[in-house]
């Protein structure tokens, strides 16, 4: 069944359905008696089917190369059953439509658009509303997913589907999409994928790579997810200029790496995550080094967390700014098998207490992490409960004052950078709250203070009648 628009209204809107059954050419469909499926079935391969505004029944299957173009945001409504659009043909383009109301069965992977054997599928500038999975693409080599607005279902996170799931698909381009309230955006066996300038928020894994090699991930903003991006069992990944912000799940990371080999990460921002960057067994190959260069780790509970056996990561030119714990190991023992400066260039550390007498921009003494409290957390993880308390600060202060309390340093940067290095501008997506609202809230607080204080002040001065004085 179609959407909620009354039939009579749709009748009125009926335009003759032109079925030009000759050559590849424009077909115009309007909501009405003839179903969208019929229109598609009647179209020839290579036709451009234009949907005018209105609601069309979903559950359609496209089994030939076809371009579906919406004008005035027509809605294809799945009616809460199954997938809304199924593509099983190469060279299909879907553009400018609203894809709404899929079923909600995780086991059936009910989706907005699902596809199989659909190379060069192009999904461009569509809106996905109340769908379990946004799109689930299989064998869609060279697919292009661009500028879509994907909103999931309002379900508990484990019951949600993925905003974007790509399976066995090489050379896909995922660019400029906004994914909100999904579960994950997953790339399985998706070699040479390009993920650029997407904004993924309020999900579980903003990006999830499994066995996807040679990916290029650039300029994405991944915020308020449980994990910004989790890359697993993949090789030769390039991550540049991404923003990982406020990913704070129970074991949440901005960027998590597991068994990744050949990572290049530069120009990324890790801000206000529980853990900015987490690496486990990455790189796994003993002859491989990972260069993490010119990234910003700011305001995370832990800036960088490395598994105890992790080695051969080279940190250079990064800025570590006011992370509660700048760098930590997930168990006791140092991080000495990783490099914290490279060719005389270390990192900027906001808590570096050294000096630079020769003004070469490099600190004259090494930067070391030897906080007693951090050390205690590594030994007794329960201690993390006290992170940021005055008592924890007192513990650190005590160990600074009494060197005998100072633990072995977990890392040493021999060439700490005095100044924050220059970075290209970070992409911004979160709309800053209007300064006016903040101003009003602040003035409201101050006014409340005045009102309370005035409540006492004016009480005794008024209504005192002095009789009899002349």
């Amino acid at each position, binding site marked *: 069944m179609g959407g909620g628009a009354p039939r009579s209204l749709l009748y009125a809107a009926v335009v003759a359905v032109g079925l030009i059954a000759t050559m590849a050419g424009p077909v115009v469909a309007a909501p009405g008696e003839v179903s969208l499926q019929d229109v598609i079935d009647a179209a020839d391969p290579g036709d451009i089917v234009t949907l005018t505004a209105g609601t069309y029944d979903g559950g359609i299957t496209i089994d030939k190369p076809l371009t579906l173009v919406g004008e005035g945001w027509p809605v294809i409504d799945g009616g809460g059953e199954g997938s809304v659009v199924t593509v099983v043909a190469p060279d299909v383009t879907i553009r400018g439509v609203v894809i709404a109301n899929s079923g909600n069965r995780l086991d059936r992977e009910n989706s907005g658009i699902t596809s199989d054997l659909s190379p060069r599928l192009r999904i461009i500038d569509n809106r996905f509303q109340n769908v379990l999975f946004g799109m689930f693409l299989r064998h869609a080599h060279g697919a292009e997913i661009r500028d879509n607005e994907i909103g999931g279902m309002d379900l508990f996170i484990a019951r949600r589907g993925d905003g974007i799931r790509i399976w066995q698909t090489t050379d896909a381009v995922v660019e400029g999409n906004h994914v909100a309230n999904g579960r994950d955006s997953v790339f399985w066996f998706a070699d040479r994928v390009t993920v650029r300038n997407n904004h993924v928020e309020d999900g579980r894994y903003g990006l999830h790579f499994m066995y996807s090699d040679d990916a290029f991930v650039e300029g994405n903003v991944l915020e308020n997810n449980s994990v910004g991006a989790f890359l697993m069992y993949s090789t030769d990944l390039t991550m540049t200029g991404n923003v990982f*912000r406020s990913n704070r799940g129970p074991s949440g990371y901005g960027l998590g790496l597991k068994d990744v080999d050949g990572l290049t990460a530069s120009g990324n921002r890790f801000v206000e995550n529980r853990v900015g960057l987490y690496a486990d067994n990455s790189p796994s190959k003993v002859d491989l080094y990972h260069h993490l260069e010119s990234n910003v780790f700011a305001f995370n509970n832990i800036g960088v967390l490395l598994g105890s056996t992790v080695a051969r990561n080279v940190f250079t030119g990064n800025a570590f700014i006011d992370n509660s714990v700048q760098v930590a190991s997930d168990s006791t023992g140092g991080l000495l098998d990783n490099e914290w400066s490279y060719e005389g260039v270390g990192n900027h550390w906001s808590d570096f207490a050294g000096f630079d007498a020769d003004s070469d921009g490099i600190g004259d003494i090494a930067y070391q992490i030897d906080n007693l409290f951090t050390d205690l957390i590594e030994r007794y993880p329960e201690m993390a409960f006290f992170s940021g308390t005055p008592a924890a600060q007192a513990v650190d202060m005590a160990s600074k004052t009494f060197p005998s309390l100072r633990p072995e340093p977990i890392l040493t940067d021999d060439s700490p950078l005095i100044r924050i290095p220059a970075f290209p501008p970070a992409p911004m*997506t979160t709309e800053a709250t209007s300064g006016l609202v*903040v101003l009003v809230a602040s003035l409201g607080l101050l006014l409340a203070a*005045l009102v309370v*204080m005035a409540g006492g002040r004016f009480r005794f001065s008024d209504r005192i009648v002095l009789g009899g004085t002349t």
Partner: protein
Amino acid sequence: MTAAVGAPTVPRTFELRLVSVIARKVIREASRDRWFWLYCAGFAALAGAITVTAVPDQNLIGSGGFGRTAASLVALVQLVVPLMALTLGARYLAGERDSGTLVFLLCHPVSRTEVLLGTYVGLAGSMFAAVTTGFGAAGLFSALRSAPTDPVLLVSLAALSWLLSLAMLGIGLLISSTVRSASTALGMALFVWLSVVFLGDLGVMGTVVATRLPVSALFATVMVNPVEAFRLASVVALDGSLDALGPAGTYAVDRFGDGIANIALGVMAAWTVSAVGAAVLAFRRGDQT
């Protein structure tokens, strides 16, 4: 309203009106008290300084960054608000006793309960003003620098800080109504401050190291402390959960889920009610005029 006209005007046992009269008097006293304004100004200056220094170059981190500012504000509140509220409460009745104004109040047809509750409400109003001044200043600096700010979070943190001050004021007044000398009261207030801010946590930390305290016991022990209850409620307001706080945080999330904030509020409320209750009992018992 059909009050019997001409009924004998024997005062009722408890009159809210008197609580209000005394509270207004206390607020007026505070508004004339140099120390109080020094506290307020200091708190506002520190809170303002945090918003000015904690917010970094937006080019560097993209948008956002208020979380860090808010966390710094929480740390500031943890130190300053208990100190303010405890000393304010502990000094107040002792000061009234020393200046003889307590006798002035008590020789009126006013019960000791009314005097104590009025004092408490008045001090609570004064702390409200102090807290809102601080957070208002922080927000104002933020707004003037167009720094990213979450006004809802700002107001929630102000409210939590005030709740913390209510509990601390209760303890301060309890000290004030049991101890006669103003200097002893001040000393006790400082000791309590040291305990709730540092010693309590350090003690639990030591126990963790010595006995590997189970996380459930750790969470329960820490939660008893009103300052920690404030911190955990603030962390929930900031992060939505306690997941960043290690195994004990995860335990709390698993065990209590969204109830953590309510537990924290409950702890502060329980301290407030029991401390004020005990203060009333102690003050009623006293021959101390």
